[in-house]
């Protein structure tokens, strides 16, 4: 890893800012912790903590109705919570940018994370989301930029998948 590679969440944040994202909704996840902190500290971004991820799909639709761009942050387990609400984005062609941290795919200690992690990509594809997967720190910002263009340029759904290898395995003993 290069000396700079650990700052990919900061570069991702800057990419969201350049992309004009004004509302950031999330169910907290350790892999998104730095990005969430940056969003919360930014006066121009409305950060919205959710009780469940599907709330964020509806929020993003409302944001676009009113002219705002939103992003939805979640862990792979949250994808399952969104399935029916994604009908809203599909039926109405609402732009939907999802940033998804993966669990259950690489050195996963918790087997309960595996069932949803193993179907995250195919489920998203069935929901007409374009998948943008980042495995290396240095590719995150560029991939996110591609997803932003896809989502807001054509009113489409995209998922930026932040792999578990990128994020690192969860430390269970401290």
């Amino acid at each position, binding site marked *: 890893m290069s000396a700079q590679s650990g700052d990919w969440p900061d570069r991702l944040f800057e990419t969201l800012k350049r992309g004009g994202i*004004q*509302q950031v909704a999330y169910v907290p996840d350790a892999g998104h912790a730095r990005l969430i902190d940056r969003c919360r500290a930014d006066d121009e971004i*409305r950060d*919205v*903590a*959710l*009780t*469940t991820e*599907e*709330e*964020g*799909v*509806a*929020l*993003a*639709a*409302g*944001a*676009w*109705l*009113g*002219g*705002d761009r*939103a992003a939805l942050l979640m862990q792979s387990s949250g994808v399952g919570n969104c399935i*029916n*609400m994604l*009908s*809203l984005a599909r*039926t*109405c*062609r*609402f732009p939907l940018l999802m940033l998804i941290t993966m669990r259950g795919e690489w050195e996963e200690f918790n087997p309960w994370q595996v069932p949803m992690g193993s179907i995250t990509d195919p489920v998203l594809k069935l929901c007409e989301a374009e998948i943008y997967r980042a495995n290396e720190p240095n590719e995150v910002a560029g991939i996110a930029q591609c997803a932003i263009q896809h989502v*807001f340029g054509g*009113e489409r759904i995209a998922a930026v998948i932040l792999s578990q290898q990128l994020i690192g395995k969860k430390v269970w003993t401290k």
Partner: protein
Amino acid sequence: MTLERRAAMATLLADRGDDLLLVPGLGSTAWDAAAAGDDDRNFYLWGAMGGAAMIGLGLAMAQPNRRVAVITGDGEMLMGLGSLATIATQSPPNLAIIVFDNGVYGETGMQPSHTQAGVDLIGVAGACGIATRLDVRDDNELADLARRLKNLRGTLFARVQIATDEPPRVLPIRDGIALKERFRAAIGVKS
């Protein structure tokens, strides 16, 4: 005493003004809004059950100089109870969540909802931290809600107790893309 749903909707939307944006929840409240008179600033839901209030939140935050009303049914609200907690944490001053509560799922055969069993939506909204809450049971209380909606200052939650009648359906357009495009055009939003 309970209110007649079509009359209640008409009262709330009378002289609505250019700055009122409406999100009617799926089912009967969408038909009620259509019956009150179609408007480009209505984003009728034909699905997304449980999402009406959150659509309202995203819209209210994006359009702070306009008023946003979500008018939905008790069944739709029950599916998204967590959104009341989320809305309370944001407290946009220009958002009203209004629930037409008849205690039944009207679209599916009048099966009882949790509110009929005693679940108190006003209590839930209060426990979440929404300060302004109205229980609307008669014409005077409905008139008060309509006045507050016209002069919205602070997140508002209201339950309107309506009768379980089923007036004839008045169906709005159901092309989601068309609904979205005309809504955005009506308020002058560009991509």
